[in-house]
């Protein structure tokens, strides 16, 4: 890999070198490295682009890195990655996509990630999206995440897009069986003329399943964001969705939470708040000696921390 690709890798996966554990690195549409372990197998799909990641039952404290980097202007790809997490496994999966577009043609990565969690499996899924490059070509990412959770499984998803992605549509769907739980934390910042659309749909099918979907975002300049979050309570269950956005400059943000109870014992809550940085917050930090710009940066960084 060249230096640009190495930098992208650091931005999206925090990797300075080859990671410990299993990994699959995809660079400009081709495999740039792979390692499997005794418990984690990675297999190239034969019918379409992408890989299957198969984690054996009972695998504990192992991680899988599957970063994607694109540094070729004009490259567009659609990749299917399926994760099969065995019974009672407890693993961390770090994905992420970085695009460096120095040319005038659009560069686009669309990943469809499907997670199939067996009974009692636990997954911490970390996903970061990052774009850079001074070409006129757009940097586009459209990740789709499909989660299927068996009984008593637990998934935590941290998804972050802080910089440089011109347009993104992020779709996540999840279906939970009895006793399963899901936590999604989204952090998003858009600037310039960027557009970001988020769409979560969670079906709480099983008894005592639960979901907590939390989004914090900052929209600057003339960027636009749309946040949709639908939770369907189809059994005795608990669901909570929260969208909290700071709006700046001439940006626009729409938050559309939707909760549907299809069962008498479904307990569902939604919260949504959009507003500019409170003047008194700026004033407080200025009385500590910060300039207005420094105060604003502290507030935004803290909010997205």
């Amino acid at each position, binding site marked *: 890999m060249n230096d640009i690709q190495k930098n992208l890798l650091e931005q999206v996966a925090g990797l300075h070198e080859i990671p410990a554990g299993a990994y699959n690195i995809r660079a400009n549409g081709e495999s740039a490295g792979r390692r499997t372990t005794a418990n984690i197998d990675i297999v190239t799909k034969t019918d379409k682009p992408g890989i299957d990641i198969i984690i054996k039952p009972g695998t504990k404290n192992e991680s899988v890195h599957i970063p994607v980097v694109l540094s070729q202007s004009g490259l567009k790809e659609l990749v299917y990655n399926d994760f099969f997490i065995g019974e009672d496994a407890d693993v961390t999966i770090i994905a992420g996509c970085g695009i460096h577009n120095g040319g005038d043609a659009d560069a686009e990565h669309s990943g469809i990630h499907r997670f199939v969690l067996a009974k009692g499996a636990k997954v911490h899924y970390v996903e970061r999206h990052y774009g850079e490059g001074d070409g006129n070509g757009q940097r586009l990412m459209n990740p789709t995440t499909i989660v299927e959770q068996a009984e008593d499984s637990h998934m935590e998803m941290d998804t972050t897009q802080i910089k440089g992605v011109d347009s993104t549509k992020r779709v996540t769907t999840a279906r939970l069986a009895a006793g399963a739980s899901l936590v999604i934390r989204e952090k998003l910042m858009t600037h310039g003329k960027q557009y970001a659309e988020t769409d979560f749909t969670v079906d709480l099918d099983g008894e005592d399943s639960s979901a907590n979907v939390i989004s914090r975002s900052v929209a600057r300049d003339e960027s636009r964001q749309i946040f949709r979050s639908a939770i369907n309570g189809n059994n005795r269950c608990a669901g909570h969705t929260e969208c909290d956005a700071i709006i700046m400059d001439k940006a626009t943000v729409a938050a559309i939470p939707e909760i549907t109870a299809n069962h008498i014992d479904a307990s569902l809550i939604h919260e949504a708040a959009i507003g500019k940085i409170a003047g008194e*917050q700026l004033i407080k930090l200025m009385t*500590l000696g910060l300039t207005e710009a420094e105060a604003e940066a*502290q*507030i935004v960084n803290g909010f997205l921390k």
Partner: protein
Amino acid sequence: MLELQNVSYRVSDTDGDREILHDVSLTIDERFVAITGPNGGGKSTLAKIIAGIYTPTEGRIILDGTDITGASITERAKLGVSYAFQQPVRFKGLTVRDLISLAAGHELSVNDACSYLSEVGLCARDYVNREVNASLSGGELKRIEIAMIIARGTKLSVFDEPEAGIDLWSFGNLITVFEKLHETVNGSILIISHQERILNIADKIVVIAGGQLKAIGTRDEILPELLGGSNPGCACSVLTQKL
């Protein structure tokens, strides 16, 4: 030394033109100066004018011989003015340690942040990494606000009703905090308060009512009249009721 020279503050709103402060002159050079008077009398406005949040429509503000009337909030903070809000501000995402570090002007270790929190009676380990958000009570926020002023350690510290909401913490501790702050920094502490126990430690008491300076003097000169209710003006009857 802080000097206010003929400070007036006028606002225009839907109710028309109103004067919130009229021709207030005073100097603050003592250890503890207390400003008291009825609600709505202009005390908090005066504090905000000192901190630079409001700019006076007339008059001048001099800090150690330098005219700071036109100085911004940030410039005054850097010149050594600290201001503890009457109603502390909440921040989603910023932690107690973040705010105390910003106040101190450099990144604090957990131990350093804890020592400031201990001074205001908070069990530091429970608080240092908490977000300063709606999960904290008014009393907790108030103490964190005071801890920030201690961390700043500037030559002038202004506290707007610091005792409000600290019900679980004793006045004695609050007064100890002020005394220690003075010993450490050797600066002046200006406290807006209705509380007799705070007025009791003041070297100078200023009574503001109806936007005007009604009385100014030492504790021995002012306090008996305040408590006796025989002071001229409406300030003191209201104050006595509060006490």
